[in-house]
């Protein structure tokens, strides 16, 4: 289907309102239009919102134009030739691009007033969609009567926490549901068809060809036994877009377009030979190969490092803007949605609780759930440090709890690739951590932060360097010394789903360290478990339950309770909240800060998420390729980063581009 990118700014709104806006207040419409430039062709321009837009237009406009809405720019140039209203608008004295961009709405307005059929269709129109899964425990209604629209050339974000039904909604559109899932009601109109009524065979001509999917986890979403090139070429072959002979070179070209460096070589490689970011690019290549009109991106970057995430999203945005492809972006990260989408649809418990233009939703959330989501999104809130209780600097003569000196850890790489090589995972790292304080190790995957923590805990032996715990050198501690360290230093793991023994009851989980160190008797251990549960705000009734019966947040609380059982001096938290939903994240971070204030425990806090670190850490060490590139207090580091890499990390925090407060570090310009 060919389709001019310019003529699609239609809306699902009452036409009259819009026309009124347009006709009655030219000035407002212009500013509104600028808002439109940025936020995309908004769906619901009521007079009301238009006025609020009018109140603060300049910022929006510049902000959004800077982010580079290529479509708009192209659209604009096209319209200059076709639409006579351009001239009128140009007289308002706006810059050429802005003015032309403004025209999009008048064009639509005109079209709408002219045309008798007011409802010029959106590209995708979901109405009353309900999806349920059959499980052993009965039918679970995952999606309840969801309405959703996606316009051509726009990014619509579906935001919600895990279990909100956002992913199910996205998959239900092309009926890519699990075998036990089914659509109960609703229509999914795409172009002229209702996808819910198509036969499987007809649907296959839509999938891949007209609707592309960028899946969630690039590490498992490519077939491990097929070459990258084949997997891209397959789309072309299935839809008859290339011959057996032409497909391989076409695939290379598409991979190149998707931003995969050295595409010809990569095309001959297997997925496991590529990094996560490169694999996601390959999957984007699969999605765009047949030049679809709509791309459904299901958490496309959640599994990737923050800087990689940014580059990938930038590229996806660039590609879709260039081709006028619509995007349905599913994400749990409001920051990502704020940066990328023109419209946001907020889902909770299978329902859409709020939908509208991004700015409206973010600045004027109507639903309590949206407000809660906004409040807990770490990347969107400005600094809200929790770690204030013990913020006073330690006395200079105080013996640090942990002191790591020039730690080095080398791993032997497999000799298969030629001569035996070593990987220096940790390279001359020195750290100091005082009692009652939190030191955050920040870095991307592979930066050596987890290995550093394992060295401090003496779970691995350093190649060189030393570790002092409470003034005593424990680098070579064996037997009783090492056991003493185990007692005083505990660990909270990243994945609360895997770190609790599924066969233990919660009581057994929490008292295990006590049993291991023969602390107290049965009764006193149980009392301690109750006390700890109370401390992490879980009811005593969970003592007899199994981990599987608890939610992720509850499990992480149990893991924290277990870590605190022996009243340790140090708790190493290895990405303790990255597997949790944002609102749960906020609760767990609050809990950690509170426990520190009460017990004076020190945290070595490992995270790739700077936004999280900002809330909890006193000091931060930024790691890259095994080295500490910058250390400083959290405040210093976030407001005055010295190292380029730190700045890069800060800039990559999603949501940064939306933040209007001036306390953000500078944002590098998007490519246009």
């Amino acid at each position, binding site marked *: 289907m060919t389709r001019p990118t310019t003529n699609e700014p239609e809306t699902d709104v009452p036409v009259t309102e819009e026309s009124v806006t347009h006709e009655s207040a030219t000035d407002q419409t212009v500013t509104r239009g600028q808002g439109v430039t940025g936020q995309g062709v908004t769906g619901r321009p009521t007079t009301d919102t238009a006025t609020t837009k009018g109140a603060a237009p300049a910022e929006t406009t510049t902000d959004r134009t800077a982010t580079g809405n290529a479509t708009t720019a192209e659209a604009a140039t096209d319209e200059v030739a076709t639409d006579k209203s351009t001239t009128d608008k140009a007289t308002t004295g706006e810059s050429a691009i802005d003015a032309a961009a403004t025209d999009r709405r008048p064009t639509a307005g005109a079209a709408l007033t002219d045309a008798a059929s007011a409802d010029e269709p959106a590209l995708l129109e979901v109405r009353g969609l309900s999806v349920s899964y059959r499980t052993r425990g009965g039918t679970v209604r995952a999606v309840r009567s969801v309405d959703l629209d996606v316009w051509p050339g726009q990014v619509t974000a579906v935001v919600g926490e895990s279990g909100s039904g956002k992913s199910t909604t996205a998959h239900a559109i092309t009926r890519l549901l699990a075998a036990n899932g089914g659509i109960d009601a609703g229509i999914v109109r795409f172009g002229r068809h209702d996808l819910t009524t198509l036969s499987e065979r007809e649907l296959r001509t839509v999938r891949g060809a007209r609707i592309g999917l960028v899946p969630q986890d690039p590490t498992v979403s490519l077939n491990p036994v097929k070459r990258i090139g084949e*997997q891209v070429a397959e789309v072309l072959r299935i839809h008859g877009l290339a011959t057996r002979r032409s497909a391989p070179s076409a695939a290379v070209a598409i991979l190149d377009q998707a931003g995969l460096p050295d595409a010809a070589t990569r095309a001959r490689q297997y997925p496991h030979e590529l990094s996560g970011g490169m694999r996601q690019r390959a999957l984007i290549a699969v999605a765009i190969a047949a030049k679809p009109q709509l791309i459904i991106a299901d958490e496309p970057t959640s599994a990737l490092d923050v800087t990689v995430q940014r580059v990938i999203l930038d590229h996806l945005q660039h590609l879709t803007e260039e081709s006028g492809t619509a995007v349905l972006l599913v994400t749990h990260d409001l920051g990502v949605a704020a940066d990328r989408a023109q419209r946001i649809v907020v889902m909770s418990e299978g329902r859409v609780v709020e939908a509208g233009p991004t700015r409206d939703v973010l600045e004027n959330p109507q639903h309590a759930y949206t407000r809660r989501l906004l409040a807990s999104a770490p990347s969107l809130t400005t600094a809200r440090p929790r770690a204030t209780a013990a913020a006073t600097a330690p006395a200079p003569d105080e013996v640090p709890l942990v002191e790591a000196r020039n730690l080095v850890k080398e791993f032997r790489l497999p000799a298969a690739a030629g001569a035996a090589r070593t990987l220096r995972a940790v390279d001359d790292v020195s750290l100091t951590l005082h009692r009652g304080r939190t030191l955050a190790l920040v870095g991307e995957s592979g930066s050596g932060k987890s290995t550093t923590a394992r060295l401090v805990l003496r779970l691995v032996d350093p190649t060189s360097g030393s570790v002092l715990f409470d003034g005593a050198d424990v680098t070579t501690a064996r037997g009783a010394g090492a056991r003493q360290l185990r007692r005083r230093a505990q660990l909270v793991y990243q994945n609360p789903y895997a770190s609790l023994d599924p066969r233990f009851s919660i009581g057994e989980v929490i008292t295990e360290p006590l049993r291991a160190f023969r602390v107290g008797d049965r009764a006193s251990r149980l009392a301690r478990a109750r006390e700890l549960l109370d401390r992490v705000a879980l009811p005593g009734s969970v003592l007899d339950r199994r981990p599987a019966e608890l939610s992720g947040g509850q499990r992480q609380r149990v893991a924290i309770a277990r870590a605190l059982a022996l009243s340790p001096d140090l708790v190493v938290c290895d990405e303790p909240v990255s597997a949790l939903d944002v609102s749960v994240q906020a609760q767990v971070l609050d809990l950690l800060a509170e426990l520190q204030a009460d017990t004076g425990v020190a945290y070595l806090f490992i995270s790739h998420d700077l936004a999280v670190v900002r809330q909890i850490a006193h000091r931060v060490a930024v790691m890259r390729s095994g080295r500490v590139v910058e250390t400083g207090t959290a405040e210093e580091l976030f407001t005055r980063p010295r190292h380029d890499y730190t700045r890069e990390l800060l800039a990559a925090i999603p949501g940064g581009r939306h933040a209007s407060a001036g306390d953000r570090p500078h944002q590098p310009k998007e490519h246009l």
Partner: protein
Amino acid sequence: MRLYVVKRLAQALGVLWAAYTVSFLVLDYLPGDPVSAMAGAGADTGQVDPAQLAALRHEYGFDKPILAQYADYLGRAVRGDFGDSVSTGRPVTATLADALPQTLQLTGAALLLAVFLGGGLAVLATYTTRRWLRQLLLSLPPLGVSVPTFWVGLVLVELFSFRTRLFPAFGNDGLRGLVLPAVTLAVPTGALVAQVLAKSLFTALDQAYVETARAKGAGRLRIRLRHALRNASLPALTVVGLLAGQLIAGSVVVETVFSRDGLGRVTAAAVTVQDIPLVQGVVVFGALIFVAANLIVDLVYPLLDPRIVVAASRKVRPA
């Protein structure tokens, strides 16, 4: 890679040696005396001259201490000489070589049938959307595994030889004679292949890359054949490697039931008369087939799954 093959060959030699040694010890421990059995078979009255027996024992080396016997036999076995059959006097290697072609035909045909029928059944079971058909297909493999081979053979003979006269009931009569024994031998083997493959196919179809393939617009059959099958084939391939040894064992029963000449019947006969050199030859040969089949399977893995070479070496765990 080359180092890997050398290592595996060294392992294979170790397995062969172990097979030889264990069978030697077991056969030595068994009650009965091959020489008296052999001599007794020759004489009508059962009265055998003790001097004659002693001479025979000496000839076969049975009068030496057990360790000396072992060293002696092992030394010759390494050179490919397993001695002569006690019952026929022919060299063991010649006896085996004569019987081998028939058995290779049988087991080869059975293996092909097993892989294709078993594999086909597994793919069909995952392909069909009809619940009852899937259930039916999936209930066949456990049935095939649990039914005794000789019973399957007898039923087939009854149906296809005695009633319809489609295939001969016994003998080594060319291709037609091969059909019933091969099918009989393929039933338990194919059932195992089908069971393992179906299970791993269902697992593979749950993987995220299958969803990617569906999102590409790939059809059900394409997803199964081009995406899931290759990923699912590794466990099935492992089973096939293990089955190679089992096929040799199965040929003992099948060749007896269908009165076919071959390794199986040679084995059965050798065991009955305690023909120790021949039994040892069969054991070592069986071990050889088993080791070779598994080596081939292991060498095929990397061709099916490019990750395997990497996974074979020690993993590095940074940060």
